[in-house]
């Protein structure tokens, strides 16, 4: 037995003091009587009519001792140990979407939680509990927790995601604990069929029979005023007839219904079509009742109109740039002479052989800019004329940005006759081409936080614009400078969604299907967030002070709907040991100790009396 605060035991000094006071205070009154004959004889006739009446004399003593002992122990916080009775439990809980499958009013996830709570309740006090939640990500909810109540409470608060199951990361985490202590009792609670498991118990919480269907591979084609939708449906356990419905623009009334006879385990392709002038979204749903509803519908949102932006070219000779960009994008491209330049509502400004007095608050290309401009992120040191045409050197950087911007660019035989020498560059720029270690084509973020591309030579005085690399590089730079905010609207739960943060974008907020609002960090060029639920996510942002909303749909992972998925493995390397640690008695033992103290006190009083009688 140990004590959390042993100094609290000093209070037990009060016990002998109280007993001493009791003994001194309750001395026997001595008195001489004519004869003790009758008193002695009365012992033969003595019987307690009320057994408790004998305690009446020491009730106050008992209460005083109890008070002192309980207060002392409460301060000292005793911990009663029971050798080799406690275990170190590690629960690995599958929180994937399939665990939401319900039967008889409860889900697999709830069933797993109940099993874990049963294990916690049944374990000896002093055991430790570690909980690892597994879905697309692995999270250690608590580690070597000893408080049963807290362990239960935190377990109850663990949500079930709609994502997939990533055993590998969970296995690494569990292995880490197992390596530290070979006596770790690792138990995996999942609905998957785990074929191989070593040094770990697997509890399958799947139900015996479930009505489970899935909808996958949904695609839509809009052409000629007709929307054609294709999908694949599957019934996992039973032959049945599935009823499918097609809804448009979030309306509750379907525009099309169809029935499909499916055989168990055999995927069936389905197609539906409807006439419409335009649409914002369409939804396909299996109308049959299902144990796992997450994979029974799919929504596709039309993002096409949300990505539009405008480009302004400021140049004396904008023709070749305009022609090249027209090939690359449908975006509206305006041109302006340098003396007529005014900042407007553009997503990208391209300055060719002209340096504005100040940078606009948008993405900007500075081509052959020989003047310094504030917040551009670099300084111009004048034009350097070369004696003979020289070849640009392509960057061999492995950075993501460089790789992306140089995609499709061959980068050979680009000759220049003069260039602008730049210095004092910010480190955030990524150099794409250079000459003699001087960066000549580089991209990055300027002092306003806007994307900026700098080309340090006159396109008219180089053969770059005549090469095939020119169009490819322009395409990459255009995509870099004015990317689509969100590239697609259909995702699978567990995927990362990338939001391209352009210069004019502020305040990005993501609303999950559960109504949670997540604010995204816009300091980097690309912000990402992970889809944790099945359903529609709303991405809201301020672009040039105009609020724009993008809807994306997070579908259930196909493998999560499959109730008979097998082939998983969960094996920990090493040799399992079965050493237990010292457990703890229940707090009820405090009362037994109190009782023992009272008995000892009573025994001391008895001994004292006997001592006097000797």
């Amino acid at each position: 037995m140990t004590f959390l605060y042993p100094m609290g035991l000093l209070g037990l000094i009060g016990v002998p003091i109280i007993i001493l006071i009791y003994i001194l205070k309750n001395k026997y009154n001595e008195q001489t009587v004519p004869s003790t004959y009758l008193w002695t004889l009365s012992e033969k006739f003595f019987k307690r009519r009320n057994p408790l009446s004998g305690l009446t004399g020491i009730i106050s003593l008992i209460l005083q001792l109890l008070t002192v002992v309980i207060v002392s122990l409460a301060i000292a916080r005793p911990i009663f140990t029971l050798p080799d009775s406690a275990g170190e439990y590690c629960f690995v809980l599958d929180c994937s979407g399939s665990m939401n499958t319900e039967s008889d009013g409860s889900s697999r996830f709830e069933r797993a939680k109940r099993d874990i709570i049963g294990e916690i309740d049944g374990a000896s006090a002093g055991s430790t509990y570690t909980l690892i939640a597994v879905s697309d990500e692995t999270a250690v909810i608590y580690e070597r927790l000893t408080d049963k109540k807290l362990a239960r409470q935190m377990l109850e608060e663990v949500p079930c995601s709609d994502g997939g199951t990533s055993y590998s990361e969970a296995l690494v985490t569990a292995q880490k604990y197992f390596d530290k202590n070979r006596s770790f009792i690792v138990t995996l609670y999942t609905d998957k069929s785990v074929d191989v498991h070593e040094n770990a118990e697997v509890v399958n919480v799947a139900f015996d029979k479930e009505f489970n269907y899935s909808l996958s591979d949904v695609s839509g084609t809009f052409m000629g005023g007709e929307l054609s939708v294709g999908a694949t449906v599957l019934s996992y356990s039973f032959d049945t007839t599935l009823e499918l419905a097609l809804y448009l623009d979030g309306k509750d009334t379907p525009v099309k219904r169809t029935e499909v006879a499916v055989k168990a385990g055999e995927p069936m392709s389905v197609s539906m079509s409807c006439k419409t002038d335009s649409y914002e979204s369409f939804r396909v749903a299996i109308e049959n009742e299902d144990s796992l509803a997450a994979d029974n519908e799919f929504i596709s949102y039309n993002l096409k109109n949300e990505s539009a932006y405008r480009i302004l070219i400021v140049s004396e000779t904008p023709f070749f740039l305009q022609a090249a960009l027209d090939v690359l994008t449908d975006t509206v491209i305006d041109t302006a002479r340098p003396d007529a330049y005014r900042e407007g509502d553009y997503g990208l400004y391209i300055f060719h052989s002209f340096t504005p007095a100040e940078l606009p608050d948008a993405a900007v290309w500075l081509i052959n800019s020989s003047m310094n401009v504030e917040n551009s992120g670099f300084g111009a040191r004048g034009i350097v004329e070369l004696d003979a045409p020289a070849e640009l050197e392509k960057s061999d950087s492995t950075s993501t940005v460089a790789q992306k911007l140089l995609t499709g660019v061959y980068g050979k035989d680009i000759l220049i006759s003069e260039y602008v020498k730049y210095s004092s560059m910010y480190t955030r720029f990524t150099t794409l081409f250079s000459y003699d270690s001087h960066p000549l084509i580089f991209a990055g973020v300027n002092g306003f936080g806007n994307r900026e591309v700098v080309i340090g030579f006159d396109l008219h005085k180089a053969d770059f614009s005549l090469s095939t690399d020119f169009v490819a590089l322009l395409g990459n730079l255009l995509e870099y400078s004015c990317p689509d905010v969100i590239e697609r609207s259909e995702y699978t739960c567990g995927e990362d969604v990338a939001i391209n943060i352009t210069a004019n974008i502020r305040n990005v907020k993501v609303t999950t299907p559960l109504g949670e609002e997540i604010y995204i960090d816009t300091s980097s060029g690309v912000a990402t967030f992970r889809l944790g639920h099945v359903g529609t996510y709303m991405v809201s942002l301020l672009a040039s002070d105009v609020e724009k909303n993008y809807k994306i749909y997070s579908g259930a992972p196909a493998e999560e709907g499959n109730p008979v998925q097998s082939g998983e493995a969960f094996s920990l390397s090493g040799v399992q040991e079965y050493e237990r640690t010292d457990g703890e008695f229940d707090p009820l033992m405090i009362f037994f100790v109190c009782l023992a103290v009272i008995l000892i006190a009573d025994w001391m009083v008895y001994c004292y009396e006997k001592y006097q009688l000797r």
Partner: protein
Amino acid sequence: MKKLVIDEAFLSELESLQTLLKNNVAGALGGNRRSKNLGSSCEFADYRDYVPGDDVTKIDWNAYARFDKLYEKLYYDERQMHTRIYIDASHSMGHGADEEKAEQAIRIAAAFAYLSVCELDKVSIYVLRGGVAEEIVSGMVGKDSYLNCVNRLNAISFEGDARISEAIVPTNVGRGDGFSIILSDFLTDENYEDAIDWLCERKRDVLCVQILSREELNPQLRGRMHLLDSEDGNRFFRKKIDGDVVHAYKEALRYVSDRVRTYCESRGAHYLLVPAYVPPADIFFGQLSDMEVIK
């Protein structure tokens, strides 16, 4: 101890009483007590034929006139009774500030002594102390000696213990000649039955008076008590006295009283439980009269 003061009014009332004996009075001297033997008292008993040599003054001449035959009239004999009073002089009788048991014993002894001398009986008073019966009044006859008797009673000191049988049996207790009165609290396992047996065997009329104090009859002690025996310092009783203990004490008291009573009744002896605080008049004109020990 408070000295016994003669209450003349009570004594004069006592003169109207007399003791009732069950056994023959076989005293050596003539007295005031009728015997079953024939003698020379004035109380006619029977006739018998005259035999020459008989006392001619006792011939019934009226019978001779009627039957023409001489008959001698016979009369009962009258003998003197010898009342022997034994007083338990142990410390338990005299314990306490007021020594109420001792006083009561002396009052009763004095009353019986006066009652006896009034009937012209002899009175002997013994003090039982240890295993010895010390005779403090020996063969007192007549009221003249009564004052001296009272003085001797007042001089009794109550101390030590008293073994009743060991003290009484060796003494001359007489035979068939009157009352033997034992005044004690009988709170002992010491043998007192032999004394009663011995006295009854000697055809004595035996009266055992058990005198108990108010505290002994209804103890008021409560709480954690260490009770020391007044007669023996080695004897003690140590207990927390509560209602249950007092209840057991009263059961023990009832047991002891019944034991003495039953034994006396089985031997034809009288038994009387006397609270120490009861006036002697109530005892003599109440309890003893009801028991037909006196009338």
